[in-house]
C-alpha cells in the first residue's frame, strides 16, 4: 500500500503575489488532487491484481436480464442464495422489460462494459458470440467449472457457436399455442388438438370467429414470425437456415404466405391492425389475454405469466403441424462477458444457477424447464403451481417426439427476422401479394446475412 500523501507535502512554495488566500488554498487543493488521484487508481489496480490469486478476495459481479416482476423476484432470491454461500462475492443485479433490453446491452457492450453475466436469447446469441462479446466457456466447461454432464445434450449443443460453448441454456422451452379454455367452452367450440395440420387448425379457428359474434377471432395471425415459419418448414424436412444461408426457397415462402392468406379469407384471424398491435406488443397485450382471439402463439415457459393476466383458464399445445418439427430448445441462456475480470466466478455463478437444486426451486420454470435433467426431476416432484405443472406436462409430452436440434441461427438473424416481420405485414395489410413479398424478402435476405 502506498502511504497517503498529505495534501501539502513536497509542494513547492507558491510565490505570494496579491493573490487572496482562498484562491491559494484552492490551488493547493488542486495540486494535491492531481497527485492523489493517480495514487488512488494505482492502489485500486494493486487490489485487482491480488484478487485473481486469492479466492476469497472481494469480487463484484454485474448481472443483467430482462423479464417481469416475478422473474426479477426469483432471480434476485437465487442470487442472494449464492452470495450467502460465497460472502466475498457481491452481485449487482439489473433487470428491465424486454423492450429496450438489447438496445442497452448493445450500447454498454460497445463501450466495453458488458455486464459480467447476462441473459441472452437464441435470436441474438450468434450476433453477440461472433463479435466476441461473450465469454468463451468451452475450457471452463472442460475443467468442470460448469458441469454440463447432467444437462440435456441437445440444449448444450444449442449454446454453441462455431464449435465454442458461448452460453448455457437457462432452461428448455418450446414454442406453443396458448388457448382460452373458458371462452371456448362458453362459445361451445371444442378445444384444438395436437398434431392438426394448419388447414384443420384454420377451419377450427374460423368456427370460433363465427361463434364469437364479430369482435372475437379464432387465432392470432403469426405469418410474420420466423419461429412459426421455421417449425412449418421443419415439418417438411427443411430448415430456416442452411449454414449461413436460407434453407428454403422463394416458393416455400409464397406457400407460407398463401396458407395464411387462406386463413384470412376464412375469417380465422383478426384484422391486420389488431394483429399488428399484438406483434408489436408485450406478453400482457397478447390477444388471448386481451380477449380478442382464442389462441396466441407463445413460448411454453410464458404460460404462468399469461395466466396472471386473465381470469379465464388457459391451456397449451404445440404449434399446428407435425410435432417432429419441434426440438428441445433453449430460447434463453446465461452468457458471460469476454471483458469480465473474474471468469471463474462468472462460471461458478452460472453453474450454480443451472445445477443447484435449491436455486432451481427458486427459479421454477420461468425460463423453461431446468436444463439439468436430475434437477428437473427433483423440481417436478416438488412443484405445486398449476401453470408450472402444465409447462412440465407439455414439455414431457413432447420429449419423445422432438426432432434433432438445428444449429443456433447465424449472424444477422435478428435483422432478418425483423425483415420477415415487416414484409409479411405488407401481405397481412393487403399492400403486397404473397409473390411480391416473398421476392422482396429473398432480395433483402442475402444482404442481411452477409
Amino acid at each position, binding site marked *: 500500500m502506498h502511504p497517503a500523501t498529505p495534501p501539502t507535502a513536497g509542494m513547492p512554495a507558491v510565490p505570494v503575489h496579491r493573490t487572496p488566500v482562498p484562491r491559494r488554498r484552492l490551488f493547493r487543493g488542486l495540486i494535491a488532487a492531481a497527485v492523489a488521484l493517480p495514487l488512488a487508481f494505482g492502489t485500486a489496480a494493486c487490489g485487482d491484481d491480488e484478487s485473481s490469486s486469492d479466492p476469497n478476495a472481494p469480487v463484484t459481479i454485474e448481472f443483467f436480464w430482462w423479464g417481469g416482476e416475478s422473474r426479477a423476484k426469483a432471480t434476485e432470491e437465487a442470487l442472494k442464495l449464492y452470495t450467502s454461500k460465497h460472502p466475498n462475492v457481491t452481485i449487482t443485479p439489473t433487470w428491465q422489460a424486454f*423492450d429496450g433490453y438489447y*438496445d442497452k446491452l448493445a450500447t454498454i457492450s460497445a463501450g466495453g462494459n458488458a455486464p459480467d453475466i447476462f441473459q441472452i436469447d437464441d435470436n441474438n446469441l450468434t450476433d453477440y458470440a461472433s*463479435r466476441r462479446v461473450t465469454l468463451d466457456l468451452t475450457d471452463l466447461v472442460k475443467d468442470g467449472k460448469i458441469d454440463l454432464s447432467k444437462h440435456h445434450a441437445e440444449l448444450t449443443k444449442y449454446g454453441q457457436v462455431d464449435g465454442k460453448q458461448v452460453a448455457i441454456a437457462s432452461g428448455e422451452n418450446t414454442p406453443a399455442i396458448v388457448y382460452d379454455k373458458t371462452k371456448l367452452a362458453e362459445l361451445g367450440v371444442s378445444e384444438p388438438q395436437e398434431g392438426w395440420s394448419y388447414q384443420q387448425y384454420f377451419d377450427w379457428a374460423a368456427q370460433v370467429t363465427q361463434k364469437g359474434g364479430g369482435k372475437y377471432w379464432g387465432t392470432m395471425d403469426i405469418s410474420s414470425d420466423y419461429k412459426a415459419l421455421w417449425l412449418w418448414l421443419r415439418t417438411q424436412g427443411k430448415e430456416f437456415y442452411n449454414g449461413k444461408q436460407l434453407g428454403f426457397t422463394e416458393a416455400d415462402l409464397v406457400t407460407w404466405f398463401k396458407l395464411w392468406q387462406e386463413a384470412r379469407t376464412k375469417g380465422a384471424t383478426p384484422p391486420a*391492425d389488431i394483429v399488428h*398491435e399484438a406483434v*408489436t406488443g408485450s406478453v400482457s397485450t397478447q390477444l388471448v389475454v386481451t380477449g380478442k382471439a382464442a389462441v396466441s402463439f407463445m413460448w411454453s415457459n410464458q404460460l404462468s405469466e399469461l395466466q396472471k393476466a386473465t381470469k379465464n383458464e388457459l391451456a397449451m399445445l404445440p404449434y399446428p403441424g407435425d410435432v417432429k418439427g419441434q426440438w428441445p430448445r433453449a430460447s434463453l441462456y446465461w452468457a458471460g462477458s469476454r471483458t469480465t475480470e473474474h471468469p471463474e466466478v462468472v462460471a461458478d455463478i452460472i453453474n450454480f444457477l443451472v445445477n443447484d437444486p435449491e436455486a432451481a426451486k427458486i427459479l421454477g420454470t420461468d425460463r423453461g424447464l431446468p436444463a439439468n435433467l436430475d434437477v428437473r426431476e427433483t423440481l417436478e416432484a416438488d412443484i405445486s403451481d398449476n401453470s408450472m405443472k402444465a409447462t412440465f406436462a407439455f414439455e414431457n409430452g413432447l420429449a419423445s417426439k422432438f426432432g434433432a436440434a438445428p444449429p443456433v441461427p447465424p449472424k444477422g438473424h435478428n435483422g432478418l427476422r425483423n425483415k420477415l416481420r*415487416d414484409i409479411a405485414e405488407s401481405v397481412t395489410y393487403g399492400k403486397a401479394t404473397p409473390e411480391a413479398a416473398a421476392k*422482396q424478402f429473398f*432480395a433483402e435476405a442475402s444482404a442481411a446475412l452477409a
Partner: protein
Amino acid sequence: MALTTAHQSAGAEANSATSGRPARKPRESGRLRRQEGRAGYVFLSPWLLGLMAITAFPMLFSLYLSFTNYDVLASWDQVEWVGLDNYQRMFTEDPSYWHAVRVTLTYALIAVPLKLAAALGVALLLNRERRGVGLFRSLFYLPSLLGGSVALALVWRAMFSGDGAFNDLLSLFGIEGAPWVNDPTWALETLMVLAVWQFGAPMVIFLAGLKQVPTDLYEAAAVDGAGKFRQFWNITLPMLSPVIFFNLVLETINGFQGFTSAFVISNGTGGPVYSTLLYTLHIYNEGFTEFRMGYASALSWVFLIAIGLITVVFFSTGRFWVHYSDGEN
C-alpha cells in the same frame, strides 16, 4: 472568436481606466491583453473541451466510421475500411432507405407548415390584451412542455389505437374510426397531429414578434381604410417575416429530426408497413438493432448534408421575402 475576446478585453481595460485604476504603459498593456486573452480561453475551456469531446470529435469520428464496416459490438481489430460501400448500399441496395426518405419528407412537408400555421394563428388570438389571456398562453404552451417525451407518445398510442379513447369519442357521434396508429394509411398522420399539437415554442416566438410590430402602422392603415385582413397581409406578415423565417428554419430541422413518437408508437418497427419509418428511426435500427453502425453513420452524414442543403435554400430564398425593418428607416 479571438478578435472578439481581444476587443472585449480592450473595452474592459478602457472601463477600468476610467473607474480609477492606475493607467498602464502601452507596452505593459499589450502584455496584459495577451494575458487576458489567455485567461479568456481558460474560462472558455470547459465549454470548448465539451464541444471538442462531446460534439466535434464524435461527429468527425462518425464520418470515419461511415467508411468502415464498424458494427458496434466487434473489437477494433475487426473493423475494416470499406470505402464508399455504405453510401452505395444506401442508394442501390436498401429498399427501406427509400421508404424512410419518402416517409420523412411527407412528415416534414405537411407537419411543419401546419404547425407554423397553428402557432401563428393562436399567437394572433392571444396577442390581444384581454382578461385571462395569460392563462390561455400557458395552456397552449403546455403540450410543448411535454416535448418529445416517451410518456406522451405512449398516451398517443393508447388514445389512437383501434379501441382507444379517440374512437370512443367518435362513436358518440356515430362515426366508426380507423385503427389510426395501427393503420398504414393513418399512422403517419397521427404522428403529424402530435407534432402540430406541440406548437407552443414557435407560438411564443410569434407572440414576441407580434409585440414588436409598431401599433402606429396599424393606426395609419386603419385611417387609410385598410380592413383587418389587409392589415394582416400588408403589415403583420411582412413585419413578422424575420420571425417566420426563424421559426421555419428551426421547425424544419426539428421536423426532420422527429424520432421519439415514431419509435415509441411503432415500438421501434417503423410499421405498420413502413408507414412511420422516419429517417432517424431507420438510422437507429440499422445501428443498434442490426449492428451496421458504419452504415448508420453514412446514413447520418447524408442526412446532415440534406438538412444543411435545405437550410441553405431557405437562407438564399429568404432575401426575397424576409423583411428586416431596421436599417431601412
